[in-house]
């Protein structure tokens, strides 16, 4: 059980690292677009893509997991977008 949880955390951490790499590359190539303010029109959550990247980098650096569900949803959407 403990091993399963540990494995899952490792899989998530690896996936996040890959996403950070892809996002860093995109931000470097699109510096202006990275700073454009975005908003979810229902929840009113505001963000920039650079801000999302910075939060992920901070998460990796500190080991403190992002718990904000909206940010996690945006991460998933960004991941899917950069895969396509």
């Amino acid at each position: 059980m403990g091993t399963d949880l540990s494995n899952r955390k490792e899989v998530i951490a690896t996936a996040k690292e890959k996403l950070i790499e892809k996002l860093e590359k995109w931000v470097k190539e699109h510096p202006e677009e990275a700073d454009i303010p975005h908003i979810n029109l229902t929840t009113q959550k505001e963000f920039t893509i650079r801000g999302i990247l910075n939060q992920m980098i901070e998460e990796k650096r500190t080991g403190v997991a992002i718990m904000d569900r909206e940010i996690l949803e945006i991460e998933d959407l960004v991941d899917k977008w950069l895969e396509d």
Partner: protein
Amino acid sequence: MAKVDFLIIRNKCDRATEYTNWIGEGMKEYLESKGHTVTDLSNTDASPEKVREWLSYDKKKTRKAIIALDHGSTDVFWGEKGGQPAQVIDLTNCEELTKKLHVYTLACLTNASGGLGETAIKKGCLSWLGYTEVVYAAKSDSFKDCIWSYVEAMAEGKTMEECEQALRNAYIARRNQSFIYQYNLDRLLLRKSGNDMTINSPNRISRVKSLMLVMMND
């Protein structure tokens, strides 16, 4: 009050509607430059009372289309009253307010299955472009131009299918700028009561008046 071709509704009572209100800035002037008449219900003017006044089918003050940039939910398009979101078009009044009009929205959820857009079409609205889920907006000229693409196509007298395609193309052309373009595109839906309609026909101008206008223009 004079009669107009377009009614723009864009409240500004919270952070999200600051974005959508901004997207509507300059739209009235643009449409007027294309020969259309327009009323722009911005900020506190986007009240239930003023929307009803301008959209009532009996009065026919708005004759062709509604451009609705605001909050939406499955059953409601929102304006504002007293600085708070307020219902302006809902399931109970959509027949009276949208009958024989084309509706273009940038708002969440109004075209969800069984929701406001679908109900309005069943009750006589001519077309409703909206989104089936929650959507995102961006504060950039590129996003604004994307949303305007449908309006520009309408103003040029293109069919609703062409307007939809113009918007889809605008989203596709921007897919590398942010995830929100593909995201919104995947949730975009045009509901319509017929094919090949434009804002010029059919609409709330009677058949006789339409023929007279065509003859005058000829």
